[in-house]
């Protein structure tokens, strides 16, 4: 009340309505509403974990043939992009997607490792998982027990797929 009286005394005669305070209050209300609306409607939907999970699932689906590793997987000219239906360009440009497949024997030794996409994701995924880092990729890891042929001998091992995505999506301008 006291402040109000002081303000009233400060405003000159004829400035009861159009005072600088009124403009200040108007600007404050306007900025508050505009800021609030923009914050609410520019919400970002983060689906990187879902995307990484889908990628890991697709790699696993492709390489696991009823509990056996695809026989071509251990061959030198195995093309995972062609066999599993992945776009080579999507993994080679843009730093968006990554996967790493590790076939290991029963004692955990790697038999064959295969990867696509930026290799830095392999380490960045661990950083992203342990800290709140928005620009780091989000990854999903899946492991299955699997049978594979090694020099004609059927062996038991495991197939681990680590897949990551760092796709945020983005706005494009008018046509």
């Amino acid at each position: 009340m006291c402040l109000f009286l002081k303000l009233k005394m400060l405003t000159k005669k004829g400035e009861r309505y159009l005072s600088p305070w009124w403009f200040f209050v108007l600007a404050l209300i306007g900025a508050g509403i505009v800021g609030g609306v923009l914050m609410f409607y520019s919400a970002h939907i983060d689906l990187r974990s879902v995307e990484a999970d889908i990628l890991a699932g697709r790699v696993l689906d492709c390489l696991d043939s009823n509990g056996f590793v695809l026989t071509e997987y251990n061959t030198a000219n195995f093309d995972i992009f062609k066999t599993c239906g992945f776009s080579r360009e999507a993994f080679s440009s843009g730093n968006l997607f990554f996967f790493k497949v590790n076939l290991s024997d029963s004692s955990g030794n790697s038999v064959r490792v295969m990867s696509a996409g930026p290799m830095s994701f392999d380490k960045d995924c661990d950083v992203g998982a342990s800290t709140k880092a928005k620009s780091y990729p989000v990854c999903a890891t899946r492991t299955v027990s699997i049978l594979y042929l090694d020099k004609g001998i059927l062996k038991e091992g495991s197939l681990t797929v680590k897949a990551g995505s760092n796709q945020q999506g983005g706005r494009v301008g008018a046509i």
Partner: protein
Amino acid sequence: MNKRGAVGEEPLFEQIIFIILNVLFIAVLMTFVSSASDGTGVYEQSYSKQIALLIDQAKADTNIIVNMEKAVEIANKKSWQRDKIVQIDELGKQIIVRLAPNGGYVMHYFSGYNVSIKGDLNNSDVLVLEVKDAN
């Protein structure tokens, strides 16, 4: 008399200006809020992400059916062509959703299959995508 009259008129003129400015301020604010709250940006983002994930998950020789009712409704409101709501860039492996002439939202997909739009959004609210093996 004249002097008194002039002094008496001043607050009235000021009151009118005050009311006009207030109405103007509220009108501008309401216009901004109503244009921002139709959710065009959010819908563009959610549709493009949903379609990209569906393409990524799809196996070869699959048809994907997406309900685009809300997208069509917004596009109609914004006078945007319905057949330009969803665009697929096969080379860049990206999907662009536009619900208004002033922009859109782009998402990449990693699937190597050939994706094409089968249905026509001009005649229905349902988008049909055909996923075929590239080999």
